[in-house]
């Protein structure tokens, strides 16, 4: 008999990312992330797969627990390079491919002690790239470390003690406007992302100090050029990135963009090393999508590779919401000869597309579901990819020319013994006839024909995001707790073409109508009790949840996670508050600015709430500060004490803690949801 899916299983799930292939295409390597019950953190290991025998081996050590990330084979196939925190901080390491093969053939794990540690930077290496003759890396350094020549050696005990004091207790001295970032879970610490190079033969490392941060470096295949992101701006634009290219000896730094619009993905050199391909935001009448651009280094201005005048152009990436954190080293675009392959979420799946390197292309579909491709590497006659679906966590698979997916190994065998509900995909015409809303309904588990079940409507973060066919663990857990789960991508979501993803629409009543239409369509399936509906949302979805319960009493219970409801208090406290009026270069009259924010805040209608409300919020949320949930909690509890309201604070947690945060936080958040709905949709008291 199969098991019920429960929050306990969250700690057993393994998330794959960082797929790479050896030059002879015989070996594939990828990262496996799992949560530790020891400290609640994510721990990452590397697994290597031999494609011919499907033999697998993990890089491991009997001595100590460590993480290994970012695997890359050297172009000559001799080594597997990776980052490891075994020395304390993440350093570049390598291991001979022959050692890996020997372990694979013997059926042993790959012994970590056979690897060489190649760098000794004080605060670890964030990312790296390599070609045959050189490696380039990114490491955070402080100005004094660069000046005192301490950038390439580990800290002494005294230096470490001082560094730790500064991190934990050091006063945060702030003069720049844009001083906080969600990626940092707080205030910028003064470090400068700095590039360095490493000669793989002599193992000599050299730093490339720069006045402003340079990050996400990639190397040309001849090792002569580095393309990277940089933060050249000051004042309110401080954290915004531009694209740069420089010689690998650090000379001739050249800024390639200046419009504040590049995407977060690392760039890619073309095969002739004369051009770079990068992602950038395409904005048109409040609608936005990521596009791909190519810039020839010797010319002025980039070429747009995608043609957005065509309604079916998907854009790049598509910003899918991933309910499990797969890591950040996704290979979402790859060149094979003069063909560019890339991923984009479109119409409910994460698809693979190809274009040639010419301006204004309409991409050709290589794969468009079922399921979603998270990462891919082109190989002879097909692709290796990480592929997941409604019922399967992403696993390493082969995508052949006839568009069939063949799993090669399983990192999540545990899911095979778990009973999961059927997932129904609906396409619902919008009431204004202008759009089709993609909606997904999870049947409750166990499911009995003819019975009616309570249902939960789940709204995703964003608004520029989408829920693709993928393994969404909290939705399965809600289904396993006896609820039908309805989710949809209302207008304002990404992944349905440029005009669908309109910022103005996202904050109008249109998405609420789309959601209602999707819900009605789900109810018409016959197994949902329309009198026992709950609503939950995260980020933008949580905000929408609050807005909806201020205008309808249709729901018996509501859950808002990381909500954003009061713009007047958010000013200066969250990302939306950091979008400075400076950009309009008009004098700022604070009274006008704050009153305008106050009048635009959805919390003004707080008195209309009649629905029991659970608020979940990370205390270190920089996107939407914790005080936002407090505004709702205190206001509602004081003015309407008869309406149950509960607030759960997650210390040290950021905006996306329920996906990327600590294990106990992720488990607790799901359990809080299950218990809250049990209380008000099933009238069960939580039992813990």
């Amino acid at each position, binding site marked *: 008999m199969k098991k019920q899916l429960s*929050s306990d299983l969250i700690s057993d799930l393994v998330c794959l990312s960082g797929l790479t292939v050896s030059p002879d295409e015989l070996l594939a390597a990828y990262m496996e992330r799992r949560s*530790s*019950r*020891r*400290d*609640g953190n994510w721990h990452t290991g590397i697994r290597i797969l031999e494609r011919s025998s499907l033999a697998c081996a993990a890089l491991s050590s009997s001595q100590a627990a460590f993480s290994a990330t970012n695997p890359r084979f050297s172009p000559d196939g001799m080594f597997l390079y990776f980052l490891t925190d075994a020395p304390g901080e993440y350093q570049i390491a390598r291991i001979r491919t022959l050692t890996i093969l020997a372990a694979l053939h013997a059926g042993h794990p790959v012994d970590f002690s056979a690897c060489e540690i190649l760098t000794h930077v004080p605060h670890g290496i964030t990312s790296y790239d390599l070609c045959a003759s050189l490696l380039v890396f990114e490491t955070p350094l402080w100005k004094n470390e660069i000046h005192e020549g301490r950038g390439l050696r580990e800290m002494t005990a005294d230096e470490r003690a001082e560094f730790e*004091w500064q991190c*934990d*207790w050091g*006063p*945060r001295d*702030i*003069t*720049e*406007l844009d001083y906080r970032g969600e990626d940092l879970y707080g*205030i910028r610490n003064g470090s400068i992302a700095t590039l360095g190079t490493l000669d793989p033969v002599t193992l000599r490392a050299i730093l490339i100090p720069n006045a402003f941060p340079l990050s996400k470096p990639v190397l040309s295949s001849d090792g002569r050029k580095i393309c990277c992101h940089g933060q050249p701006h000051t004042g*309110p634009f401080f954290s915004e990135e531009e694209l740069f290219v420089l010689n690998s000896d650090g000379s001739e730094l050249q800024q390639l963009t200046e419009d504040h619009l590049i995407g977060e993905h690392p760039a890619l050199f073309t095969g002739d090393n004369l051009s770079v391909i990068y992602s950038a935001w395409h904005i048109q009448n409040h609608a936005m999508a990521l596009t791909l651009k190519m810039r020839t280094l010797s010319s002025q201005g980039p070429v747009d590779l995608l043609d957005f005048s065509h309604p079916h152009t998907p854009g790049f990436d598509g910003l899918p919401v991933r309910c499990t954190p797969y890591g950040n080293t996704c290979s979402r675009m790859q060149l094979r000869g003069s063909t560019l392959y890339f991923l984009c979420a479109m119409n409910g799946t994460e698809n693979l597309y190809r274009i040639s390197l010419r301006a204004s292309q309409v991409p050709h579909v290589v794969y468009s579901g079922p399921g979603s491709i998270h990462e891919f590497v082109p190989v002879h006659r097909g692709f290796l990819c990480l592929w997941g679906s409604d019922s399967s966590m992403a696993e390493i698979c082969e995508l052949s020319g006839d568009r069939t997916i063949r799993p090669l190994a399983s990192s999540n065998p545990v899911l095979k013994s778990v009973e999961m509900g059927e997932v129904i995909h609906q396409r619902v015409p919008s009431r204004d006839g202008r759009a089709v809303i993609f909606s997904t309904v999870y049947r409750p588990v166990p499911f009995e024909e003819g019975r009616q079940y309570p249902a939960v409507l789940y709204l995703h973060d964003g608004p520029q995001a989408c829920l693709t066919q993928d393994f969404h663990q909290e939705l399965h857990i809600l289904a396993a707790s006896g609820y039908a789960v309805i989710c949809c991508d209302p207008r304002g979501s990404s992944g349905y073409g440029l005009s669908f993803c309109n910022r103005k629409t996202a904050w109008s009543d249109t998405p609420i109508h789309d959601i209602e239409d999707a819900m009605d369509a789900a109810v018409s399936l016959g197994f949902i009790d329309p009198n026992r509906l709950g609503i939950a949302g995260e980020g933008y979805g949580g905000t929408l949840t609050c807005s909806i319960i201020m205008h309808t009493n249709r729901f018996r219970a509501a859950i808002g996670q990381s909500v954003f409801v*009061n713009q*007047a*208090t958010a*000013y*200066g406290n969250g990302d939306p*508050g*950091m979008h*400075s009026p400076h950009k309009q270069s008009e*004098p*700022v*009259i*604070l*009274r006008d600015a*704050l009153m305008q924010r*106050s*009048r635009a*805040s959805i919390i*003004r*209608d*707080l*008195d209309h709430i009649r629905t029991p409300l659970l608020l979940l919020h990370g205390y270190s949320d920089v996107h939407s500060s914790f*005080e936002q949930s*407090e*505004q709702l909690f205190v*206001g509602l*509890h*004081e*003015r309407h004490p008869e309406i*149950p309201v*509960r*607030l*759960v*604070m*997650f*210390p040290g947690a950021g905006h996306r803690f329920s996906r990327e945060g*600590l294990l*106990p*936080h992720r*488990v*607790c958040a799901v*359990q*809080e949801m*299950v218990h809250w709905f049990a209380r008000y949709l099933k009238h069960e008291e939580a039992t813990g």
Partner: protein
Amino acid sequence: MRHSSFQDFMTREKISCGTYLPASESLLFADSVFDPSQNQRISRVVLRHIPTCTDRLILEGTGPMPSPDRSCFAFLRPAPGGPQLCISTMEGEVRELTHFSAPVLDPRWSPDGNWLVFTSPAADDGAAGPAPAYMPSMGNNWNHALDPVATEDFGYKFDGLGFKRPRVMHLFVVPADGSGEARRISSGSCHFLHACFAPDNAHVICESNLYCNKENSIAMDVLSIDIHTGEIVRLTQDLLVVSYPNPVRPVCTPDGRSLIVGVLDMPETAAREVAYPSCTLCRLSLESHELTPISRQTEDCFDTVQLAYNAETGAGLEKVVVSSDKQSVLFCAGYLGVGTVYRVSLEGARNRPVRLTDAEFCYNGLAPAGDGWVLAARSATDTPEQYVLLHESTGEVRLLYQSNADDLAETALSRASAFSTPVLDGEGTVHGWCLPPQEMQQGRQYPCIVYVHGGPHPFYSNSFDMEMQAFAGEGFGILFCNPRGSSGYGDRHRQVFHAYDGSAYTDILLFVREAAKQFSWIDEKRLGLTGRSYGGYVTNYAATRSTLFKAYITQRPTVNRLISYASSDMRRSSRDYPSYGEFMDHELEHSEIMRMEKVSAPFLILHGMDDLRCPVEGARQLFVALRDSHAPDFPVRMILYPHTAHQQPQEPRQLQHYYSAMLEWFRTYL
């Protein structure tokens, strides 16, 4: 003579918990001194023979508390989980009474010397309400400070303590002879604080929020708990006994039939306005629970509790003690900016208090000493804390111990001059002091810092203030006064309304103008303004209106009332507003953030990142508003201090950084 500096914060001696033992002519107290060899402070319990000035005993620890027969003393000794309760003979033979994993706090003896009662944080009994839903079982490396916190009611956080964990302050008793283990006598999910034994040795009197509205954080009920059965008797009904921030521990009358408690005169509308009520000493009958005020307000006694803003004296001492003749109680109260000791008869009702001390020193903290004397802590603007014996009838004083005696002899401490000036609306005067720079040169002009106190209900006194002396040592004059809203000058002066309607601000400006008239060394072109909390609010208020000041430092201010409404542990109410939207607009209209584009002089913001009173969210908004609305080269800076609540940083390096930043700012712009 050397000058004071901010380094003196590290090295100066701090004394606490003094008791005079007349039979041995000894003073038992704790002092915290700087140990240069370890580069850190150490806390010691000291038994000092007064006639010979020799230390007869020195032990590592804090909080010494002699037994009723004076044969031994209880104290708290450092341990890994927090200080633990120990007993020492006068010869230094120590016995440990507790082995808790949590800190032991505030021990008190039973009158017969057989028991000690103390508080310690302990797990509540589950009735506390919502625990976070199911957490997975985690390994030893999991940091429980990261456990989620769930709440369904107010009172879920408190400044300095953080978010409410399922732990509350409970009461424990332990036999003093070590014949048994400590055991808990309180239960439930509320706090039990400020305990003492009843004269029958079988009951503990304490303050608790067991029956209180959770929103109320400044006052509690008085309970009696049977130490054998745990039975609780509620002694006060809807009575608010002063508990925060300046708690008055109930005192038993010598006949054992009553308690003396400090009762807040909570007006009907107290919850609507952030006002701190005045306090009356009352006799509470243990039998009938009847309450009788024993003191009354007179022309030279406005209050029966004092909130002296800068009186860093009297740590570990009591606010109210019974006189040795058992006929009266003695208490400290603020009178015209001076901490003053009064005596009032225990018998009858609404007696006239007698003032025992004059304005030369600020008194703060008392301990019974016997034979017609009481031990009192006092200081003056140029004299660090002293312990003195004060005669209960005549007010005669004998010096017992002068802290920081070496510094006093070697440092050119400044003495403040007091003066007053009429307020603009003729409703009284504003009184305050001017502290000149140390070793001022004749004919030279000096920059001056106007320092506004927090509250607004506390008052500046003439007590010793290390921070002000350090600024004086660096060549700055300091002006500090008690504008409208301050206590200690009568009910009219303390009206909180005037603290926020601009009256206090004009009071300060008038005071500064008067100072400039009186003291020719003040350079009117080099005035800076700073203040903490409410003082930070006044700093922000002045910065958008005045051109008098050339630099501002705002320390942990309230910035936006809408932020404070939801994120402060003490908040206003929105209930009077028909809609939430109207409440929002009203709160914003009355917030200083709305005008910050008008600031025209360099502005530094200092705030603790764990401040839950004036939430750090306000500081962040203030900084962004100033940056947003001014040219990029306008000097605005914000320094946030991790792990710091609504107070100065406690970590020594952080504190040094804090004052260095202040000094640098005023030096640069004044």
